[in-house]
């Protein structure tokens, strides 16, 4: 199980690693804002357009072109900073980060360096009933790069013959959120990392600044990890892992790196400070570029832009208009929905809070919404190896299925088949029920005949029921359901059986 010539190194078991070392993490999350236009020009930001159709001289980096700051992006950046309890800089600038890469049209990225728009904040995440405080170093504005397709035998960058670049994505506004070193998580580190990213997603969705779809790249996470002997020891050498494209990956990547680094350290080897690449398919990280803190980006203030000095009154207006913070929102929802602490935690932990909320808003009872997402959908997400939010079924679909069950049109078992159909792209729940013929038979006559046949075929069981052993009805119900291919309301079948045999 290797990836293109890289041999998976020995790993120390996670438990042993955690017994031996103390992990310190740093998480860098890039958020693609959902502004209508790009950070520095008026090109659209829509996902999935034909290549190089959403570009202009500015985002293409043509000689002579100039940037103009998108005011909405600045507003979003400030709101994100406020939601993370950051201080907002009264005055800040953009800076050029100079390096060469073909997906960067100017060979510098217009970003922020020592003057981020937001800094020194914090947020709290809950894992298994405990609260962890994550300190936020900064949140700053920058622009996204173009996208390269690597053409060659593997489609991967290594061994590619050449590359094809699309600059539609170049210039889309990004907010980079950087945590301070996250300590004191111990063996919960992978879960804390995942919970932090899930929490950020929820917060950003609540702010309405991004659609935070990790599978589409509008939320990206780089995981920095180092190990040290104990919490009192100085920080170890860290690696940065990129290509962590889902909540699952965040957890798995942390877990993996812990094991890999622990094995090396235990062997007396040192950790190479480098950028690594996460492979979701094989569950390992491989070595990428050697990362040096001293990589010389030759930062200097962007001379084509002027400083940003947000008005204090405006910042207060934005602060006052912030939506309910996630934790308070969760507490309120828990009460509204009547979930226990554990049920709520499981919902949040599965990354399903927003989905459950939307399902309830679409008309489903809370318990049902939770049931479907946490059991049925979570299982399927696991099977497909994706986050629950990436499944091809919507809250509206789930609510509709529950409504069909409540109306007696289908039962739970049939509901699962309906979900199969929806996930397979066969249409809405109603479409699937119709095309696959999954409706519960409601024709009393047909049902009654089926019950009669079952009774006739199982005289001993029928007699037991007549004698009062009501529980024996189960076998007859089973027989009827089998004949009806599950398309019967089991409860009604039972009623009919008991009525006929009473």
């Amino acid at each position, binding site marked *: 199980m290797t990836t293109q010539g890289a041999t998976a190194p020995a790993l120390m078991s996670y438990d042993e690693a955690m017994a031996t070392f103390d992990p310190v993490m740093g998480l860098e999350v890039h958020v693609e804002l959902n502004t209508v236009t790009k950070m520095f020009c008026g090109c659209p930001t829509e996902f999935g357009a034909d290549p190089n159709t959403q570009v202009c*001289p500015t985002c293409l*980096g043509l*000689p*002579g072109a100039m940037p*103009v700051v998108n005011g909405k992006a600045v507003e979003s950046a400030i709101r994100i900073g406020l939601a993370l309890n950051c201080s907002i800089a009264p005055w800040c600038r953009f800076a050029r980060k100079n390096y060469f890469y073909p997906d960067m049209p100017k*060979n510098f990225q217009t970003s922020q360096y020592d003057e981020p728009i937001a800094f020194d904040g914090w947020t709290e995440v809950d894992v298994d009933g405990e609260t962890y405080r994550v300190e936020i170093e900064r949140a700053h504005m920058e622009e996204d790069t173009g996208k390269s397709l690597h053409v060659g035998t593997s489609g991967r960058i290594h061994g590619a013959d050449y590359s094809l670049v699309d600059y539609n994505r170049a210039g889309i506004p990004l907010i980079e959120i950087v945590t301070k070193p996250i300590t004191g998580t111990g063996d919960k580190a992978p879960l804390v990392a995942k919970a932090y990213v899930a929490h950020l997603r929820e917060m950003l969705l609540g702010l309405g600044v991004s659609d935070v779809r990790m599978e589409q790249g509008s939320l990206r996470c780089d995981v920095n990890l180092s190990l040290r002997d104990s919490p009192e020891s100085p920080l170890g050498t860290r690696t940065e892992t990129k290509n962590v494209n889902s909540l699952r990956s965040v957890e798995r990547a942390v877990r993996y790196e812990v094991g890999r680094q622990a094995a090396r350290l235990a062997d007396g080897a040192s950790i190479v400070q480098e950028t690594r690449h996460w492979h979701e398919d094989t569950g390992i990280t491989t070595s990428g570029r050697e990362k040096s803190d001293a990589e010389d980006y030759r930062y*200097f203030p962007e001379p084509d*832009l002027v400083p940003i000095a947000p008005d204090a009154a405006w910042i207060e207006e934005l602060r006052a208009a912030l939506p309910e913070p996630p934790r308070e929102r969760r507490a309120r929802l828990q009460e509204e929905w009547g979930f226990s602490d554990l049920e709520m935690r499981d919902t949040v932990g599965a990354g399903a809070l927003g989905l459950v909320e939307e399902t309830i808003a679409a008309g489903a009872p809370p318990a049902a919404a939770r049931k479907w997402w946490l059991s049925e959908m979570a299982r399927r997400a696991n099977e497909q190896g994706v986050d629950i939010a990436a499944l091809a079924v919507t809250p509206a679909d789930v609510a509709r299925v529950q409504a069909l069950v409540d109306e007696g049109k289908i039962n739970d078992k049939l509901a699962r088949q309906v979900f199969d159909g929806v996930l397979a792209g066969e249409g809405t729940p109603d479409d699937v029920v119709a095309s696959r013929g999954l409706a519960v038979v409601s024709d009393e006559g047909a049902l009654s005949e089926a019950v009669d046949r079952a009774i006739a075929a199982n005289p001993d069981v029928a007699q037991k029921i007549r004698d009062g052993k009501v529980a024996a009805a189960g076998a007859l119900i089973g027989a009827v359901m089998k004949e009806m291919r599950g398309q019967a309301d089991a409860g009604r079948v039972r009623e009919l059986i008991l009525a006929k045999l009473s």
Partner: protein
Amino acid sequence: MSDLTRRTAADLADALAGGETSSVELTVAHLERIDAVDGDVHAFLHVDREGALAQARASDERRAAGNPVGRLDGVPVAVKDVLATKGLPTTCGSRILEGWVPPYDATVVTRLREAGLPILGKTNMDEFAMGSSTEHSAYGPTHNPWDLDRIPGGSGGGSAAAVAAFEAPLAVGTDTGGSIRQPGAVTGTVGVKPTYGGVSRYGLVALANSLDQAGPVTRTILDSALLHEVIGGHDPLDSTSIDQPLPSLVDAARAGASGDMKGVRVGVVKELTGEGYQPGVQARFDESVQLLVDAGAEVVEVSCPHFVHALAAYYLILPSEASSNLAKFDAMRYGLRVVPEGVDNPNAEEVMRATRDAGFGDEVKRRIILGTYALSSGYYDAYYGQAQKVRTLISRDFAAAFESADVLVSPTAPTTAFKLGEKLDDPVAMYLNDIATIPANLAGVPGLSLPSGLADEDGLPTGFQILAPAMADDRLYRVGATLEAALLDRWGTPLVPPELVEGVDRAPDLASADKETVR
């Protein structure tokens, strides 16, 4: 018909309005002039014969319908090759952009088009505007119409020479450290660097973003004022452009022409005269100052002590910004792509390196390396950081000086036009040409150069520089117009390059009788 090329733009505008001539006639006259002399002058890198004529026809049609779009509608103009012109090659004087045709127009160009000025073509320049002599153009130097063996100044030698040789009545240049003004001085033409932010930089291929400005290159003050008003003003596409209306420059030029300088305080900058200035240059300068006094101005001496550091600050700030600006030329999206020899299946980096080595000239490479050095971690504070502080000190010097003077004056350049090749091997000697012009770019204040007469020792043009506070560009035009009028009065006729005195009918004017025009 051929004396149309000798007239000022203002004059031509009047002639068009009066029905005396047509834009097509004007454009043809200038195209013929270009054909006749540009083989020797080499002011143009590209002449857009068909485009210019089509624009001229459109202008004539508008005028016939009674709808001219402005005063200069139909008057041809040349554009420095550093400004993006849609559909016309834009090389910035470099091999790395050989054949690049921009898909968009610079805002300045859009304004020229909207004002109806037919664009004759693109003029030669030092590569990426780095230079003071146009010798660093990858396409060969431009020759000074006053003496073809001499430089026309730089980086905008092409625009200045075109105007000086009557190949165009108007041109647009750009000025980062003197690239409009210094060529103006050595070719006997007028050149203006507006207040920083006064003219849009959108589409101006950046050299030093915090210093660059586009501006007019003409033969008279009024012509510059007319052109400045066409191209100037706020541009939402340029975040650094001033969001306030321009003062009326044409009015200022007219007011100045009346010649009354009473109440105007003219400050002579101590650090920008005297030692290091060619005697003939100094002499013409002193006389011009006297003319202003004669017109009623009060002269004061001011000191700007930090100006001595201006050159150093400039040669740190410019290369730093430029090194970053020029990173985009990497063979991936446009321009030259050179595949390194002897390398099997070269990767992107290798192609970048080979292309940049082949595509950039020596001066560009020097400055990129210098800039990369100045921005490097460990050196930033001592170099770029320090230079930005010196900038503050220079701005403060200007502010203090402008308390006791309404305008500041100096010779535009320390010498007259030197010979081609004379300073090529001595970069520092070359940099010294900008010693008087650089401070204005660092502080963002506007500056103007107008011809102040010929130096006695060599008979070559000298320039008089006027500087004003930021946003007070009108003062340049007022004082400039007064001086221009006084000088014209003294000379009797505008000074033109000697070979051109007898008129254009004798072709080729700039070549000796038995030499063929090379074109």
